[in-house]
Every structure is written in structure tokens, then in C-alpha cells.
């Protein structure tokens, strides 16, 4: 069955050529132009190789060797959904918008492409990012959220469920979010896998935050054990806007989340926090690029990784302070806890600074559980196993505690506890 789908970049390009006149937006020249540009970029670059600095630690051989087909889901199937983490919810099943399961302010991008003109593709970059190019070339649907100035959108869950079986499938959702001046939104983006099979989930999220807007963006990746999750977020923040994000990697065989965040107006703020919980056989990669392109901006980043069994964790975080970005305040912290002697952590925090009146610092620590802390607990009669789990939970809790929004904190807490149960 697999044989009918060609592996490697050619397979995706063939698919694009084959689908060309069935993809949404085929009658809208601006969409066609976007797709063509992306296809050209993808054709010339192919999948990123480890020779590229940004891909030094993550190997996409698994992706390149697999031939992927289209997800075939009956659209009217009854479906048992997991408990919602927010009052509003928009559901995508195998990448397709399910109006019957959704409520709230999000719309289907595929059905409302005209409404996204000038917005879609305005933040995402495809020329040097093959996976974003792949998404742009092949996206069929996604969520469109466009909040007017001053609106409070409340909290919404963006749930994406992919079902997998014997046949590898692929989904490239595109989500577009704009918050008008002073608007607020809490977005919980959740990726869930059903089944054990191989699949590729390659979402791209484009975010525009106008002056003073505030977005809390939680990303919870709970893909199935065969899943490949490669996601890219682009966010532009205008003056006084806040992009407060938290990334959680729990599932998937191979996952990489890339964030490209640009602080374009004075006093904009970004939080790029995250945690990766990786068990035997998993590879998780959290890569962020943060541009300080205006004066008086601040950024905070704390990323924690816990590694069990034969797993590999990657953190790459780059802060670029442009010459105009005087009085930048940047802080970056990356910590990893190794629970097994077969685990590996690769960490690359990076500062690139072209302004002189700045305060930037970063730190990284890697190690096992602290012997002294263990001893302290043991001395108080707590058994070894319990003491260990207490310390690991505390390490993780610290990451989750940085989240201000209660809805998000609860959702993250549940996901972390779930992972912990599978390990303990």
C-alpha cells in the first residue's frame, strides 16, 4: 500500500502538481501566487539536512524515507472528543474543519480564504524554511481568527486530531490569527494523535498582533507514538503588544517546533516558555528565533527538558537584537534533566547583539537529579522512588508555574501529569 506514494520531496511536489486545481483558492490569483512561490522554494531546497546550522541536531531521514498519502476520513463520522480545555472550541479532524464539533469565534480558513487576503502569507517566510514552504504549497484548511480592535475573545481551544493506521498520512493545516489593537485572546492549540501509525502533522500558525494586543498561546503536542510533528509559528508584535507562549512536547516519535517571533514596535513583549517531556525512542526539538527589532522591548524564555530512556532533546534559542533595539531586556534560560544514561541533550542558546544599551543574559544547565536534594528527602523517611518523582515533578511544575493564565495552566498541568504517569 505504501508503495503507491513516492517518498521524499518529490512525493510532495507530485502531490502538489496532482492536486493543483483542487486546492482551495485556485480561483484567487493571490493564493495561487503564494503556493507557486512556496513550491519553487520547496523544489529548490527539499527537506532541510543536518548540514544546515538550524538542523544540526534533528535528522529528518524518517520523514524523507516515508511515502505519505492523503488522510481519508468520513466527514460525518460520530466522534468522541476529549474533554475541552477552554469554553470555546474549534475542531479539525485529519486536518478538516468540523463545523458540527466546533463553536466560538474561529472560522474555517479553507472556506473563508477571501477574508484572509493580505493576512495569509504576510508573516510566514517560505524562501529559507522548507517546511513552511511545504505547508503553504499544500494547506487545505485551518482556523481563521480575526479579532477587531478592543475585543476580548476569551479562551478557545484549537484541537487537531489525526487518525493513523497502516497507511502513512499527512496533514498541513494553516492557522491565521489577527488581534486588532488592544484585543485579547487565550488560544490553546492542541495536537492529538489517534492510533499507532506513521503520519506527518505539519502546521503553520501566522499571528499578527496589533498595538497593545495580548495573545496567550499554549501549544500542547500529544501526538501518537508514530507521529512526526513539525510545526512553525510566525508572530509579529506591534508596539505594546504581548505574545505570551508556552510549548509542551509530550508525544510523537519526532517533534520539532519552530517559532519565529518579531518584536516590531516599542515596548512589545514576548514569552517563549516551554517544556519537553521525552521518553524512550522520542526526539523533541524546541527551536526559537526572537527578533528584537524595536527599542524598549522585553523577552523572557525558560525551556525545560526531561529525558527518560533512549531519548534525545534539542533546544535552540536565538535572540537577535537589532541596532535600533536600544534598552532591550532579554533573558533566556534552558535546563535539562537526564533520567537515563542513554538520553542525550543538545542545547544551543544564542545571542546576536548589535545594540549597546542592552541587558541580555542567558543560562543553561544540564544534569541529573541533585544528590543533596534527594538525600534531604530520604533523610526525612521518603522512599527513593517517591523522592525522585517529587523532584522531577517540582522541576516540571516550575516551568508550568510561569504561565499566568489559569485555563492554560490547568491544561498544561493535566498533560504533564499524564506523561508523568506513563514514566513513573
Amino acid at each position, binding site marked *: 500500500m505504501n508503495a503507491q506514494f513516492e517518498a521524499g520531496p518529490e512525493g510532495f511536489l507530485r502531490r502538489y502538481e496532482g492536486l493543483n486545481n483542487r486546492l482551495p483558492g485556485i480561483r484567487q490569483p493571490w493564493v495561487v501566487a503564494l503556493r507557486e512561490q512556496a513550491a519553487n522554494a520547496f523544489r529548490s531546497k527539499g527537506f532541510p539536512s543536518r548540514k544546515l*546550522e538550524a538542523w544540526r541536531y534533528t535528522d529528518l531521514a524518517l520523514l524523507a524515507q516515508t511515502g505519505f498519502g492523503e488522510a481519508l476520513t468520513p466527514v460525518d463520522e460520530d466522534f468522541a472528543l476529549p474533554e475541552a480545555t477552554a469554553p470555546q472550541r474549534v475542531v479539525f479532524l485529519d486536518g478538516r474543519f468540523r463545523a458540527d464539533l466546533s463553536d466560538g469565534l474561529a472560522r474555517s480558513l479553507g472556506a473563508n480564504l477571501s477574508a484572509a487576503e493580505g493576512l495569509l502569507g504576510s508573516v510566514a517566510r517560505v524562501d529559507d524554511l522548507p517546511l513552511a514552504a511545504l505547508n503553504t504549497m499544500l494547506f487545505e484548511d485551518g482556523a481563521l481568527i480575526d479579532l477587531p480592535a478592543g475585543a476580548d475573545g476569551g479562551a478557545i481551544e484549537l484541537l487537531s486530531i489525526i487518525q493513523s493506521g497502516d497507511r502513512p498520512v499527512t496533514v498541513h493545516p494553516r492557522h491565521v490569527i489577527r488581534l486588532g489593537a488592544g484585543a485579547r485572546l487565550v488560544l490553546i492549540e492542541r495536537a492529538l494523535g489517534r492510533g499507532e501509525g506513521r503520519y506527518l502533522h505539519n502546521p503553520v500558525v501566522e499571528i499578527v498582533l496589533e498595538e497593545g494586543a495580548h495573545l496567550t498561546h499554549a501549544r500542547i503536542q500529544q501526538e501518537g507514538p508514530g507521529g512526526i510533528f513539525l510545526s512553525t509559528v510566525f508572530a509579529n508584535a506591534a508596539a505594546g503588544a504581548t505574545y505570551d507562549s508556552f510549548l509542551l512536547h509530550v508525544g510523537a516519535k519526532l517533534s520539532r517546533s519552530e517559532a519565529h517571533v518579531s518584536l516590531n514596535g516599542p515596548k512589545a513583549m514576548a514569552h517563549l516558555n516551554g517544556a519537553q517531556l521525552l521518553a524512550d525512542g522520542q526526539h523533541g526539538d524546541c527551536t526559537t528565533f526572537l527578533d528584537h527589532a524595536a527599542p524598549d522591548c522585553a523577552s523572557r524564555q525558560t525551556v525545560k527538558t526531561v529525558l527518560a530512556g533512549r531519548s534525545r532533546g534539542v533546544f535552540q534559542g536565538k535572540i537577535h537584537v537589532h*541596532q535600533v533595539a*536600544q534598552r532591550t531586556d532579554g533573558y533566556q534560560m534552558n535546563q*535539562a534533566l*537526564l*533520567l*537515563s*544514561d*542513554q*538520553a*542525550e*541533550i*543538545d*542545547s*544551543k*542558546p*544564542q*545571542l*546576536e*547583539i*548589535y*545594540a*549597546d*544599551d*542592552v*541587558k*541580555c*543574559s*542567558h*543560562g*543553561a*544547565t*544540564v*544534569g*541529573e537529579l541533585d544528590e543533596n536534594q534527594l538525600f534531604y528527602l530520604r533523610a526525612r523517611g521518603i522512599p527513593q522512588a517517591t523522592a525522585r518523582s517529587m523532584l522531577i515533578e517540582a522541576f516540571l511544575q516550575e516551568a508550568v508555574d510561569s504561565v499566568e493564565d489559569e485555563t492554560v495552566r490547568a491544561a498544561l498541568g493535566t498533560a504533564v501529569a499524564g506523561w508523568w504517569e506513563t514514566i513513573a
Partner: protein
Amino acid sequence: MPAVTETIDAVQSVTEGPYKYGFETDIEMEFAPKGLSEDIVRFISAKKNEPAWLLEWRLKAYAIWLKMEEPVWAAVDYPKIDYQASYYYAAPVKKAGPKSLDEVDPELLRTYAKLGIPLKEQAILAGVEGAGDTPAEGGRMPIAVDAVFDSVSVATTFRARLEKEGIIFCPISEAVQNHPELVKQYLGSVVPQGDNFFAALNSAVFTDGSFVYIPKGVRCPMELSTYFRINAKSTGQFERTLIIADAGSHVSYLEGCTAPMRDENQLHAAVVELVAHDDATIKYSTVQNWYPGDENGKGGIYNFVTKRGACRGARSKISWTQVETGSAITWKYPSCILLGEDSVGEFYSVAITNNYQQADTGTKMFHIGPRTRSTIVSKGISAGHGQNTYRGLVKISPKAVGARNFTQCDSLLIGDQCGAHTVPYIENRCMTAKVEHEATTSRIAEDQLFYCRQRGLTQEDAVGLIVNGFCREVLKELPMEFAVEAQKLLQISLEGSVG
């Protein structure tokens, strides 16, 4: 008397301007034909009267180099180097050994005087026989010097004294003749021919450099030092240094370098290999003061250097200290391979970039043996249009149980046209290892400046004082004489960057 001398020195250093080593010595030189080819490699080997195995070794390196591509990953920007436009061999024409100072080519003599090498040593440097055994004056700790002038070593001092201890300190070309077994055993064992583009080039065309062997249990009685001087036009300097510390020995080695001021860019691609056996310690200090180019970024040395030490024995230690003030472009990562159990690697660095200088420097620590430890302290200072990058790797293998690393990188920015970058890589595959990294970037605090100005210091002196304080952790690792020189250098390098 000393006070008068100091005054004269001080006045001279002011009138001579920021880069006081920028003169050129007019001396009769012998060149190989311009350009690079297999024939040039054979020419250099023949000139040095090398055994066949070394020629083979060079030719293999050349063959590897031809297939390699120049690296582009460093955060430095320079026009493509034409490897055929350079001379790969340039040596002062050697006359029969002069018997007294009067007979030495006065040009060479003047060169050493200007470079500030003390008279007693100067007599030796210019190759006067017998002067090497004169004891140093005033009980001052003597320093044995190997002086490399363009492609060749012109003299090595205090050899007789060192030979008494069984220490070998000589030009590497001489070691090839007199101690071929040692050279054959160790050459390329830390930095193989194909290690990287510039190391391969060096392996093919290296002309001279220092060779040091410290026998078992010997503590080297004095500092060893090599003084590198690029003089001739359109030449590249490719020296090779090899230091072996046998079990239980100890050596401290210093390296200094200068070059004339020229509009052209000259390439310096050196390789340094260190080997420390059980319980041995090597301390390697560098004050790099190649010509940095003028204030518009014209001219200056391209300093593309591979330095690596192997802690092969248990409890061995290699410590790198560098003060990088010169060169138009620096590309340099002194590294430690920590193989022996409980071995220790250290890296202390101060790098200054002013005007249009670019530096991409740092270290690599490979933790392979159990309980290996490493410390990295890097201070980067950017001024003018300078770009300063710290790039470092800490890699811990699964067998390095209980390994420990601490890294600290601080950057200081002076002016809003410069850049400071930090790119640390941490790769850990050992659960019990502990790695810590911290980095900060800031500018000189207004309140510190104000405090100094209030006490009557000029703006420039105040900056100098603060910068010296910022670098203190590194400077204190330098041997005395070097530390003083380094402090002065920091101040000179930053001249014109304030106010």
C-alpha cells in the same frame, strides 16, 4: 635611571601611535616562487632537508586540502582569499653565524630592539654564539625565547640551560632532524592533516614553529616563549608548534606576535598541538597582537588558527589563556580533548574588536574520560564597528561519568555600531555529568563611569580601568610579564573608541 628609561618609553609609545609594531624591516630575503602547488610543498620540504616520510605527510595534506572547501560558518566576513597570490616561504638570507653583536645584520637587531626584547636576549636572538649561557641579570626569572621571523626560526635562547634538565626546546625544523622519532610520533596526532581547511593548508606548507619536549617528572625551570613576526610583503605565515609534556612534568609557554602595518591582508594559519601525559600540566598563554588594520578596516592579518590539546594521561591538565587584541579577523578555538580520567581543561580568553576588526573565537571541550572537568571564562569587548563572537562547544560522551563543566561568557559593548554574539553548543550524553553555562551582554554602566570621572580620571582612562576590571578573571591567569603587557594592550586597542 630606570625611571628615565620608563619616561622615554612612555613618550615613545605615545608618539608612535596605537600600533607600535607596525614597522617593516628591510632585510635581504629569500622567497619561494609565489603561489601554491605540489612543487612548492616539495620546495619547502627540500629547503628544510626533510626526511621522505615528512614530505609524504605534507603531500597527503595538500591532496586533502585541494578537496576541501573554505569554511563559511563563522560570523566573519572577508573577501575571498586568493591562495595563489601569496608567498609560502620567506626567510632572511642567513650569513655565517655572527660572532658578536656588531656583526649581526643591524636591521634584524633594530627589529628586536623595537619589539622590546631585552638586550641580553637580543644578543642571543640574533644568533650570537655563546651569549645564551650568560646568566640573566638581577636574578630576574629568565625566559627562553624562540624567534620566528616570517618562515623560519632565527634563534632559540637558553638552550644549554634547558638541555641540562633534558628539556628539548628548538625550532620544529631542527626537531625533525635531531628528534625525528618524537616528531613522527606526535605530529598530527592531535590535529590531523584533514582536520579543517586551514589545518590542512598548514600541514602542507608549514615552515617553522617551536618544538617542546619536557621529560618525565621535570618542572621546566623557566617560561618558554615563541615570538612570531611576519615581516615580508605578500607572505603567509604557517607555523606549527608541538608541545609534549611527559608524565608528571610541568611547562608554561608563552606566545607573542606582531606584524607590519600594510594595506594588504596577510594570512596567518598556524597549528598548535599539545600533548599532556599522566599528571602533566601545560599552560599555554597567548598575547595576540597581529596588525589589526587601520581605522577604516584596511589591511590587517587574517588569523585562522587551529589550537588543540590532548589530555591523554590521568590527572593531566591543559590550560589555555589568550588575549586577542590584534588581527583584522580572528578565527580560533583552542580546544581540549579530555581523555585521561580526572583530567582538566581550562580556557580563559579576552578578545577585543575595535574599528572594523572581527573575531569569532571560543573553545571546544571534549569530555571523554570519567570525572573530567573544564572551565571556560570568556570576555568579549566590542568597540567601533567591531564584531565579536564567542563560539564554544562542550561535548560530554556517555563514558565521562561525573564530568563537570562551567562556562561563563560576558560581552561588553562600547558604542552602538558594534556587535557581540554568543553561540554556545552543549551536547551531553552522560546522565551524571553537570554542565552550566551563563552569559551576559551589557555596556559600561553610566554610574561606574561617573564614579571614575568624579575622581578626576579622563573618560578614556575610566573606560580602560573598567575594561581591565571586566577582564581581571582572565588576566590574572597570565604570567606576570604578560599580564602587564596585556593590560597596556587593552588600553591601546580601545584608543579612539570613546568620546
